[in-house]
Structure formats: structure tokens, C-alpha cells
């Protein structure tokens, strides 16, 4: 039996840097329902770490356990070397930016930001200067004495971040803080958050269900599915090396092509066949000849060539959809498998009528054999 050695993933997932949050076999059940299966996770000092996953996968539950708002069923949470599971939120060196911000409506902006420091009995003069610094950091100096309701959504957002960060938490927890904002503001706040995180060098744990947001902002991402972390790594690793069909589906847009293994190379190259059509892919896991597999292939990894070209596989156009910067082409291969491709609008083929003949090609390294 021919078995292929898996290609080694780049090893920056191992614990380089000091661990700021160390989560050990952490589990949460609500009655009989499991919100988080026993999970291990290390977030490093100064890292922008995202928890990414679809609704109900347990992101908020995990974040709230770190913040102390939810008691774990079992397992341990160590923050800056100290186990915190027995500590109340008030005693933890974490601060949270809540999804709906939870600014205190009866206080001015300055009072909101000062609240945490007051609770720690910081002298008034220090409070004042720290609040000023925090306001400057989120570029809201001129709003200090306004009431909360006199702010726009994005401004409230900044105040919520300032209110948390002014306490210089060891870890800042953010639960989908941008989800209520419109797209424009969201993109602006994303880079703002990133800037703040870089300048304060603090550790951020950021919950989102938006893969693009996680991608653009994070140093590392943990993808959650039904209470499990199914993959953890840098945005590039997650994008280029999805380890399961779920991750490939969740991150970006992928085709899933069926195939039987008919040939194996030493570097993980795989030759596949499906109803008379053969194509190349790559595998990072051991495979044997005759295995039935599924190959993830991103829409944008496919080059659409004229029907007269000799490279790639012949395909028939079924539908072309204009999407601004790109054109989405729904094609059908000769083995009756449908395949979608995304091509820059600047590269628009002249004939986009249904039935038009094309050829589709891709670099074998972009076609990834994925487990289910």
C-alpha cells in the first residue's frame, strides 16, 4: 500500500512567546447541553487572538468564562500565571467590551471611563489624567463631558473600548463589538482596534462570526464548531490550509470536488479521478490509492481560460454573475460536477452566454484534500 507522508504545516502554532491566557481542559455544560467541549487554548502576551465560528458554536460562552461571567463545568483558566476560575469578574485582570457596549446611561462619558479606576480607589488626579489619555487614544477628547446618548454608534464603541482599556487589563475581551455597526464604520473601527492593540501592546481576545473581520485583524484565529476548536493558526494558515471541510466552507468560498486517488507523489501531490475527469491536488494528510476524498478549491484560485486553450479542463458556462470587482462564473465540468470560479472583472471573457465553452485550470497546490 502506498502511503504518503503528510506535508508539514509551518510551525508557528507552537507556544512561542509567553502565555497570557492558558486554558486547560475547559468545559461548559448548560444542563445536558454542551456549550464548550473540553478545550485547551493558549493566548500569548500581546496577541490579537480571534475566536471565530458560526452562531451558537460557543464563542461567547468561552469568552464569558475567561471574564468570569460564567462558571466553567470543569477545567482551569490561568491568566498571567494565576488560576482565576474561583475569582469574581471584579477580581480578574480582564476587561470586557460587551456586544451591546453596556455604557452606563446615567453617567457622562468621562464618568463612564473613570468608573473602573474609581472602583480601584485610584487618586482623583491620576484618574483624570488616565481618562484623558484613554480619550485621546480613541480620539474622543472633545466628547468627555457629553452624556452617553449624545453619541453615535461608532463613538459609543470607542468609549466602551476606552472604558475597558483605561484599567490596563492583562487581557481585553471583545464580544462581537462591531457587529452592530454599518459596513463603512465597521471597517474603520477594525483598523482603529488594531492600531490601539498595537500601541498598547495588550492582549486582545476578539469574538466574531465574520471570517473576513477575523482574517484582517488577528495574529491568530481559533475556529470553533459546535463547542470544539476545530482549527487554530494564523489567518494565512487557516485560509490556505483549512484542515476540514467545515473550515474551508466557513472561510471564503470554496468548491468541493469529489475524487478517487489514482496517483500519489512524494511531496503530497495527488492525482484524482472522477467519472473520467482527472485533476491534480495536494494533501497534507496521509492517503492511500483508491481513497475517496473531497478537494477544497477556492473560487478565486481558478483561472478561467478560453475554450481554445490547451491547459486545464473543459467546462461549460451555466451562469455569469457580475459582482462589481469580480465576476462569478458557474461552470460545469465534463463529469457533470459544477464548479464556481471568481475572476477579476477586468478580465471579463467576451462571451458570457450560457453554454459558452471555457477551460478551467488551477495550481495543484491550491486544491486541498480536506477531511470531512
Amino acid at each position, binding site marked *: 500500500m502506498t502511503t504518503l507522508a503528510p506535508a508539514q504545516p509551518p510551525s508557528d502554532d507552537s507556544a512561542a512567546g509567553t502565555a497570557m491566557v492558558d486554558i486547560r481542559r475547559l468545559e461548559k455544560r448548560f444542563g445536558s447541553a454542551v456549550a464548550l467541549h473540553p478545550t485547551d487554548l493558549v493566548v500569548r502576551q500581546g496577541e490579537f487572538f480571534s475566536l471565530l465560528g458560526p452562531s451558537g458554536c460557543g464563542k461567547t460562552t468561552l469568552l464569558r468564562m475567561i471574564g468570569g461571567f460564567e462558571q466553567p463545568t470543569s477545567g482551569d483558566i490561568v491568566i498571567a500565571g494565576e488560576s482565576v476560575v474561583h475569582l469574581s469578574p*471584579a477580581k480578574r485582570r480582564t476587561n470586557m467590551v460587551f456586544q*451591546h457596549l*453596556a455604557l*452606563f446611561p446615567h453617567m457622562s462619558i468621562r464618568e463612564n471611563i473613570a468608573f473602573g479606576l474609581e472602583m*480601584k480607589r485610584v487618586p482623583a488626579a491620576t484618574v483624570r489624567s488616565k481618562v484623558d489619555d484613554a480619550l485621546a487614544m480613541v480620539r474622543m477628547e472633545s466628547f468627555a463631558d457629553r452624556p452617553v446618548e449624545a453619541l453615535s454608534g461608532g463613538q459609543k464603541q470607542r468609549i466602551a473600548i476606552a472604558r475597558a482599556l483605561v484599567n490596563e487589563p492583562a487581557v481585553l475581551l471583545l464580544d462581537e463589538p462591531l457587529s452592530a455597526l454599518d459596513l463603512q464604520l465597521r471597517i474603520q473601527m477594525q483598523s482603529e482596534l488594531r492600531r490601539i492593540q498595537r500601541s498598547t501592546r495588550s492582549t486582545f481576545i476578539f469574538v466574531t462570526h465574520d471570517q473576513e473581520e477575523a482574517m484582517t485583524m488577528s495574529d491568530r484565529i481559533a475556529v470553533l464548531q459546535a463547542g470544539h476548536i476545530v482549527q487554530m493558526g494564523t489567518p494565512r494558515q487557516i485560509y490556505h490550509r483549512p484542515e476540514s471541510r467545515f473550515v474551508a466552507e466557513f472561510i471564503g468560498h470554496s468548491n468541493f470536488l469529489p475524487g478517487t486517488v489514482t496517483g500519489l507523489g512524494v511531496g503530497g501531490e495527488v492525482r484524482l479521478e472522477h467519472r473520467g475527469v482527472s485533476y491534480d491536488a495536494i494533501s497534507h494528510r496521509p492517503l492511500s490509492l483508491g481513497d475517496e476524498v473531497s478537494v477544497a478549491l477556492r473560487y478565486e484560485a481558478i483561472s478561467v481560460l478560453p475554450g481554445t486553450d490547451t491547459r486545464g479542463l473543459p467546462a461549460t458556462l451555466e451562469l455569469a454573475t457580475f459582482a462589481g470587482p469580480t465576476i462569478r462564473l458557474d461552470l460545469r465540468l465534463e463529469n457533470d460536477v459544477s464548479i464556481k470560479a471568481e475572476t477579476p472583472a477586468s478580465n471579463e471573457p467576451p462571451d458570457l452566454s450560457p453554454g459558452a465553452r471555457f477551460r478551467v485550470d488551477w495550481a495543484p497546490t491550491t486544491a486541498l484534500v480536506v477531511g470531512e
Partner: protein
Amino acid sequence: MSAVAATGSAPVARSTFIRSPFRASGWQVVLRGYIGLFLVFLYGPLVVLFVLSFNDSDTIGLPFRGFTLRWYTGLVHQRDILLALGNSILLGVAVAVLSCLLALTMALGFRATFSGKPLLLQIILLPVIIPGVVGGIMLLIFLGYLGFPFGLFTSILVAQATYVMPFAFLTLYPRIQGFDKSLEEAAQDLGAEGLVLFRRIVLPIIMPGILATTIFCFTLSFDEFIRSVFVVGQDATMPLLLWSVITQNAEPYIPAVGVLNIAVSAVTSIIGFALAARAARQPR
């Protein structure tokens, strides 16, 4: 030319599309009559009372024999009236504060989940459905057995507070139930716990509700009669005194006392609304 034609055709179109089953004019007369009667019975007595309180006549009633303020100025010498007014106000404040505090603590307790919660809720609200007369008799018997002293700040306070408290609970509970829990979590996150959290975050935010409830309780107490009458001791409240005056001999100053009572209620409500509005704007 065409504009004239267009405006000319509009009423025709309207009359064909909107056809009332009633003759519009007849229906409107009925409606107006109904509203008129409603207003007469709502405000008529008030106007009559007001007019009579200035009537220069030794018997209560019309005709109007001339304007006088003597029923009002004369009240200064009616010691029992002034005393009853003072009693009612003091008692009202005591009842309002007591029942509001009780209702507040209960409403706060009700945020937790515990077994038997629905049953306890029913028990708390039970006094609302007990008829006043029955409630009064029950208290009379019960307090009598206990040898409880009958008096303003003893038996009447108990009678009124037990009656008013469920109402206070009913107005406070939804406000506290609807309190945004994430505000408390945010405060905990920032280091506030226990009483500090309650005083700095929860209390200021629910304060308008508490004020409005207190005022509401005061007005309930201020004209509570049926329960109080069963457990009255030496001192009378305003409604009790008025009752005894009117059943013995209808003194001509009674309309003036009535207006005075209305004034107290009105002023309380206005203060209450003003406070609540201000608290909502700037609670600190």
C-alpha cells in the same frame, strides 16, 4: 382647463370609494353627545365642588349667593381637619416609603431563579383581589386577636401598607425585570460588587421608577378608606374624618376641604412627574 376638470372630478371619485354605512352627520351627533356626557360626568362634579367651595351660603348647595373665601380661611380654626390632613400626609409618606422599600427588595429578589417563584408571585399579589371590605374585616379580627394596638402608625399603617405594597410591586417589578443585566456585568467587570454596584449603577437607573412608584403609593394611601375604617384608633385620616363629618352633619366647609384634598393629590402628582422626568434626564 385640464386642471379645472381634474379638481372637478376628485369629489366624485371620493364619494364612490369611501361610502360610510352610516349617515356621517347622524353618527357624528351621537359621538359628540357621548363625549359631551362623558366630560360632564367626569368634570361636572369637580366644577360644582369648586364653585360651592366659594359659595357664601351656610348650606351646601346652589344657588350661588356670592363669592367668599371664608370656608378656606375658616379651616385654620378647624383643628381636627388640619390634624387629619397632617396625619394623612405623614401616614402617606410612611406607607409609600415602607411599601416601596418592601416591593423593591422583593422585585430585586425575584430576579433570581428559584423554585416556587410563580406561586410566591401569586401570594404577593393576592391582596389586590381581596375586596376592601373583606380585607378590613380580616384585619380587624386578626389584629384584635393579636392584641395589636389600633392607631395611625400601627394598625392603619399595616392595613394600608399591605394593600399598597402589591401595587408598588406591580409597577416596580417590570422595570427591574427589564433592567439590562449587561450593565451590571459591565460594572462587575470594572470592579464594582455588592452594595457599591447597587448604589452606583442599579439604583440611579431605576430611580425614576422608584420615585414614580412612591408617589403612586402616596396617592393610594392618601385616599384609602375602606380598610382603614375597620382598624381606626384615636386619630383619623382625612377620608375617615370627612366620612364622620358628612354622616353627622354636612358642614358647609366640606367643599373647601374637598378642593384642598384634590390640591394635595395634584401637587403630589406634579412633583412626582417632575422628579421622575428630572431623574430620567440627569440622575446624579
